[in-house]
């Protein structure tokens, strides 16, 4: 029987298998940030051991940092100390650190691919659930806890059970105004917020193949939101074109040799998956969530389902059977490791160009990295946004989890391109409506939930 892509990469990184089946798995790249690393560093200290392979670790700060006035010290003392601690720890253990102000700083899942650290066939971990993002490159990438961060520091390995395999095939072509975010919100709404638990999802089919790398990253990023350990897309020409010339990817003849290896990274035609789903791209509309987990989503033109969870609806102050279109919105957030890449800012700018931000909207447009910010500047995106009444902020996780000052006040509604609509995720009492960039742009210029295909004649 043939092997799945997950099997191939997993097996190539298996050092040994414990009784009960857990694998000692070798890790190629370890990303770290300020929130989930300090206790792991403290653990090393207690044990009197060091970081085994510092050159395989890449560090940045993103969760805690403000998205304006980054040239000044962080105001909030605990955040300031957490970021400072990461800087001290990286210096002590010889880890490359892209701190605040560094031109390579940004959200950990944006900068890894951007700088070519993330490559096909790798195993990649980070103390962050959205590490699944890197699966877009045909890597086995997954989030881990802090104890596991310490394990990777100490040994460059983890002890893991191998996930079950799932393949989700999306056939056909996406309709106008439908983007990668809509695909994944659609999938989660169909299989539920726990439908992928225990599995690693390979995304396949024409609609997936046609996505850019940015789109594939959005897709894999949210595979964790259906409970999956991660998502993966087999590498192809789109992947190779993206990686060519990126600083930490192989260069010159080495790159051509790498492509030959990477071309082997696909599931065999006779590979068996534990679970299979098949969807038709033509059924996918621009999506929006109405509830308090990412599985509570629907086509923007639908009505809130009758069977919707009453607790979630009470929190959101919505009723079953209501339309989402026309609901007033207070905040719009474009950014995060889900939709904070240059393609997302280009799309937003293209849509709002020549229009004006609605008066009732507070908008946070947050680039995912310094590099994205720099490109937005060069391409004139900052100016287009400014002309339309939007300000491009500075990079960080921002209002996705509201660890910094970018908090949505209690009871307010935010159309957000981020990944979680949990209670209080964007601030205590905040109400989050997850969407793609086009739906966010429509809300930003109209002040309410609207179908972007109507607003922008898509």
């Amino acid at each position, binding site marked *: 029987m043939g092997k799945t892509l997950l099997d191939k990469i997993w097996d190539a990184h298996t050092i040994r298998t414990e009784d009960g089946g857990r694998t000692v798995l070798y890790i190629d790249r370890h990303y770290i940030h300020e*929130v989930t690393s300090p206790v792991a560093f403290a653990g090393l200290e207690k044990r009197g051991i060091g970081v085994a392979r510092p050159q395989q670790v890449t560090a940045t700060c993103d969760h805690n940092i403000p998205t304006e006035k980054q040239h000044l010290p962080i105001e909030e003392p605990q955040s300031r100390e957490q970021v400072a601690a990461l800087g001290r720890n990286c210096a002590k253990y010889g880890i490359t650190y892209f701190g605040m102000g560094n031109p390579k700083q940004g959200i950990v899942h944006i900068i890894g691919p951007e700088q070519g650290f993330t490559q096909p066939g790798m195993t990649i971990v980070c103390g962050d659930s959205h590490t699944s993002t890197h699966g877009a490159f045909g890597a086995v990438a997954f989030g881990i806890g802090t104890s596991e961060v310490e394990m990777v520091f100490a040994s460059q390995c983890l002890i893991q059970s191998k996930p079950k395999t799932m393949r989700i095939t999306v056939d056909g072509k996406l309709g106008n105004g439908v983007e990668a975010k809509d695909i994944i919100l659609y999938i989660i709404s169909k299989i539920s917020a726990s439908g992928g638990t225990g599995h690693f999802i390979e995304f396949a089919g024409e609609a997936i193949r046609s996505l850019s790398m940015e789109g594939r990253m959005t897709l894999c990023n949210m595979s964790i939101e259906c409970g999956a350990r991660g998502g993966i897309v087999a590498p192809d020409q789109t992947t190779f074109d993206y990686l060519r010339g990126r600083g930490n990817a192989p260069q010159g003849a080495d790159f051509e040799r790498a492509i030959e290896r990477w071309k082997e990274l696909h599931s065999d035609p006779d590979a068996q998956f534990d679970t299979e789903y098949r969807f038709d791209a033509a059924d996918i509309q621009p999506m929006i969530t109405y509830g308090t987990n990412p599985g509570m989503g629907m086509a923007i033109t639908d009505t809130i389902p009758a069977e919707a969870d009453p607790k979630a609806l009470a929190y959101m102050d919505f009723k079953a059977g209501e339309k989402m279109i026309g609901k007033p919105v207070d905040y719009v957030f474009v950014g995060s490791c889900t939709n904070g890449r240059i393609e997302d800012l280009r799309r937003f700018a293209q849509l709002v160009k020549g229009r004006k931000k609605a008066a009732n909207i507070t908008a946070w447009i947050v680039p995912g990295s310094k590099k994205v910010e720099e490109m937005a500047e060069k391409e004139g995106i900052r100016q287009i946004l400014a002309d339309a009444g939007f300000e491009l902020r500075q990079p960080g996780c921002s209002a996705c989890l509201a660890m910094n000052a970018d908090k949505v006040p209690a009871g307010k509604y935010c159309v957000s391109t981020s990944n979680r609509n949990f209670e209080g995720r964007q601030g205590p009492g905040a109400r989050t409506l997850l969407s793609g960039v086009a739906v966010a742009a429509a809300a930003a210029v109209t002040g309410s939930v609207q179908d972007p295909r109507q607003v922008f004649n898509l």
Partner: protein
Amino acid sequence: MSIPKFDKLISRAIPVRTENIDTDQIIPARFLKAVERKGFGDNLFYDWRFNKAGQPIAGFPLNDPRYQGEILVAGRNFGCGSSREHAAWAIFDHGFRVVVSSFFADIFRNNALNNGLLPVKVSDEFLAEIFAEIDRDPMAQFEVDLEQQTFTILSSKHSETFEIDAYKKRCLQNGYDDVDYLVSIMPQIEAFEEKRKSL
């Protein structure tokens, strides 16, 4: 070093029936700013336990004096969302040794096991029976036996077995720590690296 050992526990239980409890509810992101692992238990379920003024909300089970114990019983799909290990730390630090649900998110399950907090997965039917038993008698006692891999409602002697892989079971029973183990096999890891280089 070692993790807290687990063998057998007889205790009352605290029910939190909500399904899909995500780690943002277990511990909201604003409490993740510490650089040391201490005090997380005070912020467990913070936004469900306390109102804006910081006063306990009477209806929440952790504030209800009828409910006590080292076992947390929760609705299906417990611990989904963020990978924050702070969620497992907060539950342990608050005094729980066991979490029972009919479904656990993967990362949470690993984080719990790495901290001596035992996740016990039972069937949906048995979970309903446990909730009903606590409703009938908040003083009801439950037994968790790791060796036998059983969870028992002591009044009825109704019992269900739960799964745990052999490696993690041994770690919990003996307090073994993964880092120590991995460091001990470093020569094997280095040999693997050498072999890969030559490919």
